[in-house]
């Protein structure tokens, strides 16, 4: 929308704007830079305090009656601000204003400043965030106040398994569970209402009406941690099924029937209004099992604990993950508390090795933000009857030196440019790793892969020796 406003008042042609955007990788910044060429009617520069902008000025966009009014409003703001101020305003307007600080660092800083435990702060920061004085006061107050009923707990996450360290452990003190590739979620029942939160701290209650209905009978003051999966018979459906359930405003009956969900419960965090995260895992699991006995198995099951006597056992278990439709194992210390974030030594994840194919780089596109004007978005292809068919896009897996080297190579070996995309000479081969493979009608190759990323740059491999689409279909068949 900002882009349209800009194009209306500027004599910069649209194609040139697009070329600039491809170079800058941020539309808010592109507009701020280009506005220097579009002399706007000088406005009186008013030094408004920040809170006035946030509380009074910017919210006007919600009350305008027409597009023309909106345009005039935005243009009048641009005219009254300096370049860098225009950039910040545009970031706020596009909803992309963020400062790259990790939540963990923020929690640490607040904890150091206000002398509050990190876990308390992390908990208070969960859920909806309001940029108000009141919210901040509540965040840093010393005595705990009643939290909103919808407030989730911070998730505890497993770290990648440190094999050497783990081999010194006594296996009897540990249990394994299948690691599912669904949506990690907390189901909260408080104040007669069911709330569902994803790990990304999105409230996703509306998207899963059958879970809301199913857990309505849970008594107040309970919080479950688990995984939402599309489920059929005794195994999860392909992740594409779950994708269909996400990001929709209304969930149709058809969608519900074709992609039914199931909740696999991992843990119990709150029991009869008591925060029980400090209790050992086994105790929490017993309470969980007891709590869920009265619920139908089609709705929810408790994640089955798998025991193992040795590390070799564990490795064998892991090899069976794909057969189960799981992506590996999570190994938990039986006496572990439910902590905050990723604390090593209590919970480990032990994923199966990704599937992989050697594919050929055929297209490249510049990234955005920090990777603006650097070719970092790649499309890879496989051979089929002497032709290359694109099969996956990948953005990650190369280190900075490799990215720079490949960027230079792409610039020198461009065949054609289609807007921001370049086709390149089919020479470079990369080993592409992925977590799953499925049939797809939307893809030219007929397959789609999950979490594709670059495992290695195969400089040693001639392009003729890259894999074929046939090999990909063999992987697909083997994974069913």
């Amino acid at each position, binding site marked *: 929308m900002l882009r349209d406003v800009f194009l209306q008042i500027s004599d910069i042609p649209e194609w040139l704007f697009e070329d600039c955007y491809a*170079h*800058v990788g*941020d539309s808010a910044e592109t507009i701020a830079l280009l506005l220097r060429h579009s002399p706007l009617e000088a406005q009186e520069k008013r030094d408004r305090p920040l809170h006035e902008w946030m509380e009074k000025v910017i919210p006007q966009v919600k009350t305008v009656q027409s597009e023309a009014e909106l345009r005039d409003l935005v243009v009048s703001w641009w005219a009254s601000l300096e370049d860098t101020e225009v950039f910040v305003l545009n970031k706020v307007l596009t909803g992309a204003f963020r400062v790259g600080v990790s939540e963990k660092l923020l929690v640490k800083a607040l904890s150091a400043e206000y002398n509050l435990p990190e876990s308390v702060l992390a908990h208070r920061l969960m859920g909806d965030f309001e940029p108000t004085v009141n919210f901040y006061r509540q965040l840093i107050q010393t005595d705990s106040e009643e939290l909103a009923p919808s407030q989730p707990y911070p998730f505890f996450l497993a770290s990648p398994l440190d094999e050497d360290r783990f081999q010194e452990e006594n296996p009897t003190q540990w249990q394994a569970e299948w690691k599912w590739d669904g949506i990690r979620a907390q189901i909260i029942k408080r104040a007669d209402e069911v709330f569902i939160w994803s790990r990304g701290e999105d409230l996703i209650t509306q998207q899963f009406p059958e879970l809301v209905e199913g857990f309505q009978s849970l008594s107040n003051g309970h919080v479950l941690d688990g995984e939402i999966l599309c489920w059929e018979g005794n195994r999860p459906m392909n992740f594409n099924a779950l994708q269909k359930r996400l990001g929709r405003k209304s969930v149709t009956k058809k969608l519900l029937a074709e992609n039914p969900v199931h909740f696999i419960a991992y843990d119990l965090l709150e029991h009869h209004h008591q925060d029980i995260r400090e209790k050992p895992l086994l105790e929490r699991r017993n309470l969980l099992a007891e709590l869920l006995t009265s619920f139908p198995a089609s709705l929810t099951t408790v994640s089955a604990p798998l025991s193992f006597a040795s590390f070799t056992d564990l490795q064998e278990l892991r090899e069976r993950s794909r057969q189960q439709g799981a992506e590996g194992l999570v190994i938990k210390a039986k006496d572990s508390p439910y902590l905050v974030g990723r604390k090593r030594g209590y919970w480990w994840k032990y994923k199966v090795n990704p599937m992989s194919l050697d594919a050929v780089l055929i297209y490249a596109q510049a990234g955005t933000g920090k990777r*603006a*004007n650097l070719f970092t978005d790649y499309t890879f292809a496989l051979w089929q009857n002497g032709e290359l068919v694109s099969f996956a896009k990948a953005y990650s897996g190369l280190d900075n030196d490799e990215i720079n080297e490949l960027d230079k190579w792409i610039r020198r070996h461009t065949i054609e*440019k289609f807007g921001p995309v370049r086709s390149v000479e089919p020479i470079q081969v990369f080993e592409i790793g992925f977590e799953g493979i499925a049939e797809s009608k939307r893809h030219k190759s007929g397959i789609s892969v999950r979490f594709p990323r670059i495992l290695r740059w195969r400089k040693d491999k001639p392009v003729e020796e890259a894999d074929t689409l046939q090999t990909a279909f063999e992987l697909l068949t083997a994974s069913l």
Partner: protein
Amino acid sequence: MSLITVRQEGLYCEQGGFYIDPWRSVDCALITHAHSDHARSGANQYVATHVSEGILRKRLGDEIKLQGVEYGEKLKLGNTWVSFHSAGHVLGSAQIRVECGDEVWVVSGDYKRGADPTCAPFEVIPCDVFITEATFGLPIYEWETGEATCRQIYEWWQSDLERPSLLFCYSFGKAQRILGELCKFSDRPVYVHGAVHVLTEIYRQVGVKMLETICTTEMPRSHKYIGDLVLAPPSAHRSTWMKRFVQPQTAFASGWMAVRGARRRRGYERGFVLSDHADWSGLVNTILQTGAKTVYVTHGQSEVLSRYLCETYGLDALPLKTLFEGEGDI
């Protein structure tokens, strides 16, 4: 037949029997300026401006066969008249004007329109065909004056006198321009990396006024550089050379610093937008001022700029594929 064509060896003028800034070994090479993507070794004979001679010999070797010319001096080469005219890019940089019959071509080399106390200003040369660079050929690139940017650099340096201030910039051209501009604000000596030092001495020999400099190799390893400004090439960033500076504040001066993503990617604390290439307005205005009806565009954004010139001004503009790199986006 065009007066100047692109051959494997570089831009070639058959009527004159010479190449301009060739990238392979040729007999006769006319050199616009001494940056490494324009001045390469291997030619039997070079022609360049007198002022650039010191740097060319430093870079290509003392033994090269080099004919120096004055700005504006006319040479008869084959069937052509050739002259060198100031390009305002770096010390000794030139555009090359080639006249044959009633046709005039100008090869811009690299150029800028902003004032620079360390080199002669750009001169507009009317021509029929103009071969222009387009390193920063996007309208997002608009420069402030060098003086305004160097004032920001000075303020940044002064803002923290408790630690060293490391400013990274290209060692030929940019470093000297900064040293020249800073004379307006300071008289404190500036420390320079060895690569900057060598070129700065050549600038001094031809009488360019700059702040006094001390090469870091002359200082004891334990020297603290508290409150000092130090200039170094970007290749020294995060090198072992840099380890001698304790908790320095770092910055990079380059045209690419106009874009936030480019600043963040490189990991410098500050970016100063300072370039020895023309910005968008500089390119477009220069092309219009030459009166050229045909424009060939090289370097960087050649396709964007040529399309814009065609559509907006009805010029006959085309991208020209060369091996010039402009200000490398490193």
